[in-house]
């Protein structure tokens, strides 16, 4: 390379710029992590969607005896923040069905893609509010498992910790609630098929449903760190007691007004990079299930594992 006059000054400038850039890279990007609103840490729960956006990877194992089949499901969720308060979510599930007649079916469910905007995070009142829309893309799953039509689910998400309660009721401060409310619209109103016995066309209507799901949490972490050190040791000092109420009301077709859902009492342990959880699933009626099921959660905080690469929002 030929040196030109003044190039040493240029080199120095570049060197200085490079150094500044390095320092910027090394500086901590002081930011709020996944699921925090002030002191409150909201864990990811089992079946009720998080009110926050994050960079996370989850595997949920779900086993329950439904009205006419025993279902075992492995749900895989990946969330990615694009902006600090806007993220995308991808869901997949592998489903194994054991029908009452003895037949079985296996396969992937439809691919789900969602977008969520966390438009409010209030530290003082431990409140998080988000809106989002989820698309369950029809035809992307195995046809004996998944619907052939797409379902669109706009929803409102909330999380509220009770840390702003007065001193006189300080033992209630570790409580929090989270929830989701939103309709699920099928993009096709019904499926037509021909009855092999009668030769007549049968139309099965796809109902619109309303999801109203919430969780009640009592955080032993919060109790221990902010209210009263009651001497809990590991692993209890990082536990959050969670009871979920994932409910769905049918709004059209033959099932109009009918509710399905479960009550899921369980516990979550939140470590630095991972979260583990286990819960029972108690059906609220015979349409929701016939026996108590189980839920197991394994969760990775990608933003803590890889804070400067795949765990950070793409744009700041």
């Amino acid at each position, binding site marked *: 390379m030929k040196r030109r006059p003044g190039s040493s000054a240029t080199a120095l400038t570049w060197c200085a710029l490079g150094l500044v850039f390095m320092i910027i890279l090394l500086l901590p990007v002081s930011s709020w992590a996944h699921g925090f609103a002030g002191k409150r840490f909201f864990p990811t729960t089992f079946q009720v969607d998080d009110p926050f956006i994050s960079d996370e990877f989850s595997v949920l194992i779900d086993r329950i005896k439904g009205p006419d089949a025993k279902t075992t499901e492995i749900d895989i969720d990946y969330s990615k923040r694009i902006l600090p308060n806007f993220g995308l979510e991808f869901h997949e599930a592998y489903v194994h069905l054991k029908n009452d007649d003895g037949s079985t079916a296996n396969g992937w469910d439809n691919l789900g893609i969602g977008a969520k905007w966390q438009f409010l995070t209030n530290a003082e009142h431990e409140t998080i509010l988000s809106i989002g829309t989820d698309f369950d893309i029809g035809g992307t799953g195995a046809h004996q498992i998944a619907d052939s039509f797409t379902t669109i689910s706009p929803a409102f998400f909330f999380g509220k910790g009770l840390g702003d309660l007065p001193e006189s009721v300080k033992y209630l401060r570790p409580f929090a609630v989270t929830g989701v409310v939103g309709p699920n619209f099928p993009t096709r109103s019904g499926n037509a098929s021909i009855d092999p016995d009668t030769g007549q066309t049968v139309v099965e209507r796809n109902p619109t449903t309303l999801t109203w799901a919430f969780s009640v949490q009592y955080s032993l972490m919060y109790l221990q760190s902010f209210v009263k050190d009651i001497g809990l040791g590991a692993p209890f000092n990082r536990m959050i007691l969670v009871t979920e109420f994932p409910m769905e009301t049918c709004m059209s077709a033959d099932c109009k007004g009918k509710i399905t859902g479960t009550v899921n009492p369980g516990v979550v342990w939140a470590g630095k990079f991972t979260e583990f959880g286990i819960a029972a699933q108690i059906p609220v009626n015979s349409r929701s299930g016939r026996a108590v099921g189980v839920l197991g959660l394994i969760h990775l905080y990608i933003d803590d594992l890889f*804070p400067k690469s795949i765990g950070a929002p793409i744009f700041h």
Partner: protein
Amino acid sequence: MKRFLPVTDHHRGVVLCLLAALCMTPAPALGHAFPEHSDPRVGATIAASPERVRIWFDSDIEPLFSSLMVHDASGRMVDKGDSRVNPSNAALLEVSVPKLAPGAYRVIWSVVARDGHRTNGDYTFVIK
């Protein structure tokens, strides 16, 4: 019944395996900082004024961005203003206090962990 996208189970399996492998790669010891225990203890009633207030975190914290204050019941700052990360333990945040009169005190802290995540909190203790 027709499928819209030619996504095969095989492809999906490979993608998920890659994603899982990515998540399993060893990570540096970072993670947001959460208090492990403190002295005086959270919500405790103690007999005499402590010399300092200390909080042990579950991971190392950034000295430049971490602080600890002690307020009295009227919200006035009573610590000596020398809050620091202990030089021999990067997970210990401490501040010294003068001899405190009986009463309720609030400890207010804010820390940035090595992963850049900020956490904060507060708690009270009472001197009899």
